[in-house]
């Protein structure tokens, strides 16, 4: 099973890099859908004993992250005229570089922290860190609102992976609640972007800076 | 000290004060080679004025009319406190403050009376008066404080009574400084040259004379008399400083004191004859100088006694 887990984890990192380097929003959404799906099935790969409950939750999460969220984002995108990230704060090459740096930093951080890892692979925690950092990087470094939501999703993926790594068993109710909240968050963000687009004719978060001081 | 000076000091001052003016004028006349007015001219003037009718400005009020008597009253009270030949009618700790503030009251009355006329000339005089006296007051009080420190007493009588020839020997320079400072204050407060010229005829340059321009008749007489008394009481301070070396009392003390006053008057006359009036802008410097001398004296005294 270890091989499977590790390969999924590597794919997750590759997805992060893809996100960092692609400018077309639709590509980004597709990538994040893929990443979400993989994160969703990760427990299946990581767990030795597959119970019914774990499988069910994993499938639901994979479905949400891989299908529902991207779908909602696509809907949002369809309404808007923006299809491409123009002039990000940090260029794509530099983003890639930052991704590499964050990956290295994650491994270093992991080696420093000595977390009581519950999962089977040592790779899980650094990958989770790297995804969190990438997510934040996307939020901070991109202009379009959609890309920021994508960043948020990546960060959530990272946190989820992190949770998988260190917490053996989150109570079902909590897990569902969290999921529900995430769903709501993306939903609300989608609506917000939709409205912003309608009101301002753009979804450029950079230009939302009239309120200051 | 139940001697004659104890009781005679005040009457002596009341009687002799105008005479000082006469002496000063005679001295000046002597220096100018004139005959000069009679010694008792001031008495004649006051007497003449007291018998006259009066003219008042329509602008003036009761302030103007009562100021001369307030001034006279306060200078008389001050006179009670000044020792003559080592003793005064009354003395208490801190009476020099009362003395100084009585003169302050007199000034206050004179100044507001001048302002009561609404004349710009009198206003000008009043303005100068308060300016100079502001600077003269610290000089006087500090000088007296130095004396007080020297003698260890804080009443005029105790102060002068406490001084003796040995003090002159011990801290002569300090006492001389004080005497000089008080002399400057004396000249300034009494509107003498070099601060003010009592005989000037140009209103713009006057200080004291211009403030009383509008007085006439009995009021002017009172003003003149009060001014003479002021000359006497402040002069008495200087004389007291200077004659304290001679430890005198009783009748002989009285005589020596009166003699000292006359010599002081002559001195004033000499100063007036040989000096020109200072520019008004220079007067503050003179007074601050006097104050500095007082401070210096005070420091000297404290060094000697500590």
């Amino acid at each position, binding site marked *: 099973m270890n091989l499977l887990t590790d390969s999924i984890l590597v794919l997750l990192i590759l997805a992060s890099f893809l996100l960092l380097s692609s400018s077309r929003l639709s590509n980004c959404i597709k990538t994040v859908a893929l990443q979400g799906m993989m994160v969703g099935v990760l427990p299946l790969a990581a767990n030795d004993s597959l119970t019914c409950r774990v499988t069910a939750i994993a499938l639901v999460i994979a479905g949400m992250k891989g299908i529902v969220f991207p779908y909602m984002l696509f809907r949002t995108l369809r309404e808007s005229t923006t299809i491409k990230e123009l002039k990000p704060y940090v260029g794509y090459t530099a983003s890639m570089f930052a991704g590499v740096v964050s990956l290295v930093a994650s491994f270093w951080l992991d080696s420093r922290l000595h977390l009581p890892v519950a999962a089977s692979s040592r790779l899980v925690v650094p990958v989770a860190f790297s995804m969190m950092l990438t997510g934040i990087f996307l939020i901070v470094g991109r202009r379009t609102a959609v890309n920021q939501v994508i960043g948020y999703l990546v960060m959530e993926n990272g946190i989820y992976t992190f949770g998988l790594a260190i917490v053996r068993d989150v109570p079902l109710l909590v897990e569902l609640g969290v999921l529900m909240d995430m769903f709501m968050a993306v939903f609300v963000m989608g609506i917000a972007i939709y409205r912003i687009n309608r009101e301002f004719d753009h979804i450029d978060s950079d230009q939302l*800076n009239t309120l200051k001081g | 000290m139940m001697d004659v000076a104890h009781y005679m000091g005040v009457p002596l001052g009341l009687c002799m004060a105008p005479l000082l003016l006469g002496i000063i004028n005679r001295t000046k006349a002597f220096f100018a080679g004139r005959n000069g007015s009679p010694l008792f001219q001031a008495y004649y003037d006051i007497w003449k004025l007291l018998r006259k009718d009066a003219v008042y400005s329509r602008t003036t009020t009761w302030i103007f009319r009562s100021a001369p008597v307030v001034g006279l009253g306060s200078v008389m009270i001050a006179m009670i406190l000044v020792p003559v030949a080592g003793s005064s009618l009354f003395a208490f700790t801190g009476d020099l403050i009362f003395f100084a503030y009585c003169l302050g009251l007199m000034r206050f009355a004179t100044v507001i009376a001048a302002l009561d006329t609404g004349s710009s000339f009198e206003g000008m005089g009043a*303005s100068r008066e308060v300016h100079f006296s502001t600077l003269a007051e610290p000089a006087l009080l500090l000088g007296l404080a130095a004396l007080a420190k020297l003698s260890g007493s804080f009443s005029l009588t105790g102060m002068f009574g406490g001084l003796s020839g040995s003090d002159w020997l011990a801290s002569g320079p300090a006492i001389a400084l004080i005497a000089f400072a008080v002399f400057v204050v004396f000249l300034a407060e009494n509107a003498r040259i070099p601060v003010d010229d009592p005989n000037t005829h140009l209103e713009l340059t006057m200080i004291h004379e211009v403030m009383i321009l509008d007085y006439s008749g009995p009021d002017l007489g009172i003003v003149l008399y009060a001014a003479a008394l002021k000359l006497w009481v402040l002069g008495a301070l200087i004389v007291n400083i200077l004659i304290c070396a001679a430890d005198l009392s009783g009748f002989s003390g009285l005589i020596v004191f009166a003699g000292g006053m006359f010599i002081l008057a002559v001195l004033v006359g000499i100063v007036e004859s040989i000096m020109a009036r200072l520019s008004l802008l220079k007067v503050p410097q003179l007074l601050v100088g006097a104050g500095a001398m007082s401070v210096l004296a005070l420091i000297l005294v404290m060094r000697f006694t500590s």
Partner: protein
Amino acid sequence: MNLLLSAFIIFVGGSFLSLGLVKYPRVLRVVGPGSVVIGSVLGIQPVLSSLILGTCDFLQMPWQIPMGSMSIGIDPLSAIFAIAILFVSPLAAVFGAGYLKSFEDTHDLGKSWFFFNLLVASMLLVVLARNALLFLIAWEVMSLASFFLVVFEHERDSVRRAGWIYFIATHIGTAFLLVMFLLLGRHAGSLEFSTFFNCGLSSHLVSVVFVFAVIGFGTKAGFMPFHVWLPEAHPAAPSHVSALMSGVMIKTGIYGLLRTLTFLGCPPAWWGWTIIIIGVVSGICGVLFALAQHDIKRLLAYHSVENIGIIALGLGVGLLGVSHGNAVVAFLGFAGGLLHVVNHAVFKSLLFLGAGSVLHSAGTREIDHLGGLIKKMPLTATAFLIGSAAICGLPPLNGFVSEFFIYVGAFEGMSRDGLSSGAAIGGILAITALALIGGLAVACFTKAFGIVFLGEPRSKHCEHAHESCMSMRIPMVLLSLACVAMGLWGFFAFGVMSNVTSVLTSGLTFDPATCGLITPYQDVLLSVTLFALALIVVIGSLIFLRSWLMSGRIQQSAVTWDCGYLAPNSRMQYTASSFAQPITKFFRTFLQTKRYVSPPEGFFPKTASFSSETDDFYGEQVYKPTFNALESWLSRFRQIQHGQLNLYIMYIIIALVVLFVWKLR
């Protein structure tokens, strides 16, 4: 104590009653001041008895507040301030009843009387409180109430600005007091005043407490570098309020300082020095700035600074006396300072009421626009004259008595030791300063009285001037009488003052009131009283003599001697500015007077003008630049709220990283 409590309750009740009576101005006119008068009359008996008999009374009630307790008490120290409060407040209130009549249509007098009563109540509570929290709350209520009273005419920009400055100054002062009391409370273990004494603070902290008390209380009292609110707030407030604030409220600062000193044990000499230097600076600069003002109420406000300086001189001399173990100096200094507190309360409120009366009838505070008012308002003029003479410290009025105490105390301090001793130099400083202040004060008040009331009217303002109504005149008459009476009471003040000073020195090794060293001064004061009396008698009989002399004489009237000029007019009179010009020029280094001159030019000059303006040195040169610099420096940080979401999120991350680095290394 019960009477005092009921007085307090009447003040508070009166305040709320006035708030409810907004709709009935006629009733309000009676109730607003009425409650102040009734309360004061009720309260004056226990205060007097404590003052004269030296008794102390203490009352503690539970109070549902953390660390607070309703501890109130009266001792002679409280009483001497309470007497000022209870004497001046009702008179100011009665004056206010007349003064505010013309505002009835435009302003909400209910609120005004509400805050007035509240101010009186809180001042009373300040001097009675024996618990730090109670004290601070009363203190803050006092500030709040007086703030609202200051901004009574809030439609004017200058008034609002003044209110702002005042409230800020007093609030920042309070911040220091908070720290001070808490430092004391921390070591005492409670906030009761009774536990504060010698509560085991290190000498380090005692000094901190002292410095904070000087700053905190000095701000309220108007010690020189902290006085900036005074010349703003006093002119802005209605005159009866200025009278109350200047006469009484700022004295609560002195009270607080003294009360704090009673906690701290034997003072080191430098405390006395500090207070003396503050006194010298406040006194001299206060009167100099006063001299340069054109606004009569601003002038009076600066004189409050000056008189606070005189009080500080007295207290400083007293402190030096205590620290050198010299009972006589301690007694004379403290007694002089405290007596001046009461005296200043009387004559300063008199002067403010006089100024209010002028303002009310002539409609301007500009001294240079006034003149000749003595003919139209003889009573106001006489009252103002008495106040002026009193504030100059001239005998036989009350100002002289307290200055006399301080002079003698300073002399005693000076005469004891040589130059090596601090007390000697302190004494010299005090004498010099007092002498200079005395001279300058005469200059200032001859100007204020002379230009406002004497001569010919300088502008149209004075044409419609009229004597004020009865309710405004009575307080002025009473206060004038008090000035004269207290000038003669030096002898009686002695006993009272020894009661008060024994509170101040109660924790020390010696008590001047009982050690017998001071008894000779009782006779001295008797002499002062006698001489003051003699002065009155002599002047009175001289007046009598003069009128006898003048009877039957012809008294002609003419124009003022004009030196040959044929068409004099009232504009040619000396003005306040020109009167003060020689002195202000002499002291221009301190005053920094701004002069705006357009001199006459050409052979036939048509216009020329001159005006001068003396801003507060500290306000303009110290506080304003500092605050402006601070504000512009701080506003640079406002850029962190730039509207960019990305960077906001960055802040979150930075906060996380910093915490990790800081806390989880």
